[in-house]
């Protein structure tokens, strides 16, 4: 657990190949690292720097801008409960208190078994479905304390493994763009045609 493993290095090189400049691949590679280890390790950031031709400090500077990259281990399931206006009015505070009691941790904490991390989140753009939360960025709407307990039970017993992969996995099925569809390492200024996947349609 540290640097990208062999499979991921192969994938990383493929991803880098899709961009005119290697360092454009920094963020996709950070996701890859987070998928591998559940969070972004220092070793992975250094490795990404080597792969895209940036210093570790530059990778860290980019990564730390984004809330969704974690630099400390988090639980297998990261539960973000929205605390912004609509959800607050519809009982988010009570839901948070309940969640803290149910899991025995404070907001921001992780359960000792490494299963759950609780976080308070800003608006998740589901105000009509308040109060809402996300588990590894998958929505749950109009959540009551009872719903929350059910959710935790289902996650604990593995019933939702199909639907909600562990923290760090963005999509269950990885998109693969055939190599011949990539632009390759050319100067962005020199690209005059739309990308191949537009099938000849104008870019804009």
């Amino acid at each position, binding site marked *: 657990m540290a640097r990208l493993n062999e499979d991921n290095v192969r994938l990383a090189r493929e991803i880098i190949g899709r961009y005119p400049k290697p360092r454009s691949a920094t963020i996709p590679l950070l996701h890859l690292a987070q998928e591998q280890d559940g969070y972004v390790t220092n070793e992975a950031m250094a490795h990404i720097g080597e792969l895209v031709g940036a*210093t570790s*400090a530059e990778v860290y500077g980019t990564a730390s*801008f984004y809330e969704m990259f974690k630099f400390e281990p988090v639980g297998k399931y990261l539960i973000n409960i929205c605390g912004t206006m609509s959800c607050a009015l519809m009982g988010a505070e009570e839901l948070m208190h309940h969640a803290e009691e149910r899991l025995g941790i404070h907001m921001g904490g992780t359960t000792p078994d490494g299963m759950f991390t609780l976080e308070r989140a800003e608006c998740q753009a589901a105000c009509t479905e308040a109060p809402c939360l996300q588990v590894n960025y998958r929505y749950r709407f109009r959540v009551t304390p009872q719903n929350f307990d059910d959710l935790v039970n289902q996650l604990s017993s593995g019933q939702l493994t199909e639907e909600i992969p562990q923290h760090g996995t963005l999509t269950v099925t990885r998109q693969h763009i055939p190599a011949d569809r990539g632009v390759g390492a050319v100067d962005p200024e020199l690209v005059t045609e739309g990308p191949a996947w537009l099938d000849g349609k104008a870019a804009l």
Partner: protein
Amino acid sequence: MTTIDNSADVAEMPEPDPNAVSITINGKTVAARKGELIIAAADRVDEYIPRFCYHPRMSSVGMCRQCLVEVEGPRGPMMVVSCMTPVADGQVVRTDTPQVKRAHEGIIELLLANHPLDCPVCDKGGECPLQDQAFSHGAGESRFVEEKRHYEKPIPISDLVFLDRERCILCDRCTRFADEVAGDPLISFTQRGNNTQVMTFPDEPFASYFSGNTVQICPVGALTAQPYRFKARPWDLEQRESTCTTCSVGCRTVVQSSRDELLRYQGVDSDPVNWGWLCDRGRFNFQSVNSEDRLEHPLVKSGDSFAQTSWSEAMESIARTLRHASPGSVAILGGARGTNEDAFMWAQLADAVGITMRDAQLDDGLPTDIFSYPQATIDSACAGGTIILLAPDLKEELPVLHIRLRDAAEKKRIRIIEVSATESGLTKNAWRSVRAESGTTSAVVQSLLADAQVAAQLSSGPVVVVAGRGNLAESASHTMSAVDAVVSAVPSATVLPVLRRGNVRGALSVGLAPRSGADAAAILEASANGRVECLILLGADPLSDVPDADLARRGIAGAKCVVALDTFLTPSAAHADIVLPVAAYGEKDGTTMNLEGRVTNVVQKITARGTSRADWMIAAELADSLGHDLAVTTLADVQKKMASTVPGFGATTTSVAIKRDGVVVSVSSPVRTPLSVASAAPRNSYEFRVAMGRKLYDKAVGTATSPALSNLASGARVTIHPLDLERVGAAVGSNVRVSNAHSSVVLPVFSSESVPRGTAIVPFNQPGADIRELVRHGESVIDVRIESVS
């Protein structure tokens, strides 16, 4: 009434410059050029616009918003950021309206909201742009009554630089500098919004050779340099403008002192040279001048130790030796670490007495023939065309020249073709970077010249050869022959000689160049053979600097009498019979010459240590006691004499010479001696060929005696390719024996993919076992065996 016919004038009127634009700033008409920024145009006409992030030597980012001005637009005046807005013809700019003033006050208030008001204990207080501009452009009061943001007070981000995040105003100057100028983006903005902070990667310090510049350009007290922290208040500092003589780039500096002690050097923007930047070695080695270990009195050897003596006795003793020795048996080595005046007076003394054996280099540079080619300047090299690098790693040896060339390459003005034994700091910026193992430099250059693509590139514009001793384990003739090959192929090519020591070119130019081929190596050989009665070392330390350690040892031991003029008791001075303490940098006035031949002044800021004197005074007095009146009593006399004696130095008598940018002196070309390149013997595959280069931080006296720098040296080591390491069967960091027929040394081994197979990279003059034991002057290359010792 007279009729005026303008038609003739009209016909002769030159085409209007398409890039010229005229704008108005606060009612003043300002001639500007397309692409120029409003803030730069305003600076030229002394209309000051407050700013924090804008720096004329870096790209604009518009981070701080302090430089807001009003520009007339179609819908009336609008606020624009003057460091991001280019001038346009007819533009009307106002920097003094109530709206602008309100904006300036607002930004200051915003910046101060989280800024601790710890000015009384802040090193920047008194020279702080935030403090100054809060007074000149702020409202004087803040509405912010809440708790300010808190961070751990200063944290070290490198061995030399401390960061206080509470004081930081996020102007992006240090991070921009690290990325754009130094090319070491080891600091970056991290986090976001209110939590944004400048930070290194965890456990990876901001170990840039240029880190001190970030402290100088920080517009607040967020970055402070360890050697200066809490040492003085700016208003207690006195300063004089001078030139750094740590290496031969000749960066312009101010030397600052308080209570007769040097406390800080700051970079000064000299357009043709350093653009305001300094390397950390040049910036922080003022500590060496203040060192406790400085020599203060003349010393005379008695038995195995030294006894303090008086100047008159020491001088009389030297004079007696010189009187009894035949001039042909006296030799002078060194002079490259002093001023032109020092070197000139010693050359005058040598001429008067008839001493012919002299050399300002220590067999670690190039023959003076390098000056016989048409010469380039830093500016001409950076202006465009192709650079052929046949030089040491400039980042390690001439760091600010590295910055200049890197800038020109980054901006795609020049293309760099590098020929070197291993990768250098400029390899990433090179158009072509070719590995040449020791002994093949010339052949590699020949084959490059035959390459059609390279030939096309070379014929596309000016060609400058940056030539220095890239590899101390390869005879200088290989570099010279490579330079010759380029100049033969491209007759219009010019040469920028990059010899290392501060005033090496000056010393060689004013009379300390070897006569009839008797260079330092020949002199030491003669001395080893008992043919030197008196060896005079002018700030020279052959035991540390001559690549062939054995030759240096035999040379020093063979001289009947060794006289050393130095600031410290160096290893060579320790073997001297008489040691004279001399004034260090900052303790004497004079001039120096940089690698381009540019003459600028160096100044005295503090009293010379103990009884030490300038070298030139010693030469004058010695000549006098030997019965030769050199007719000088003051520095001005020396300079006058130098100007009339040394061709080209006439220009330095004018006041121009002591101005910031100096004058480039063209010294008449010496006759070039025909080259004989020693061919390297073939080697068997179990051997490694050594490449030896210098690192910025080594055992050099100015570095080793500066506490802030002395522990930054990497230490002696050998670096080979990972596959070679496997073959040797040693683990990274373990000891290996490096041996050849002459000697063997045990060094820790490291591996790097940047080292070609079969090459062993060993840094020069590092603490630890000395690879120079394996070097012999007469041998063109050094082949060694490497075995694991376990």
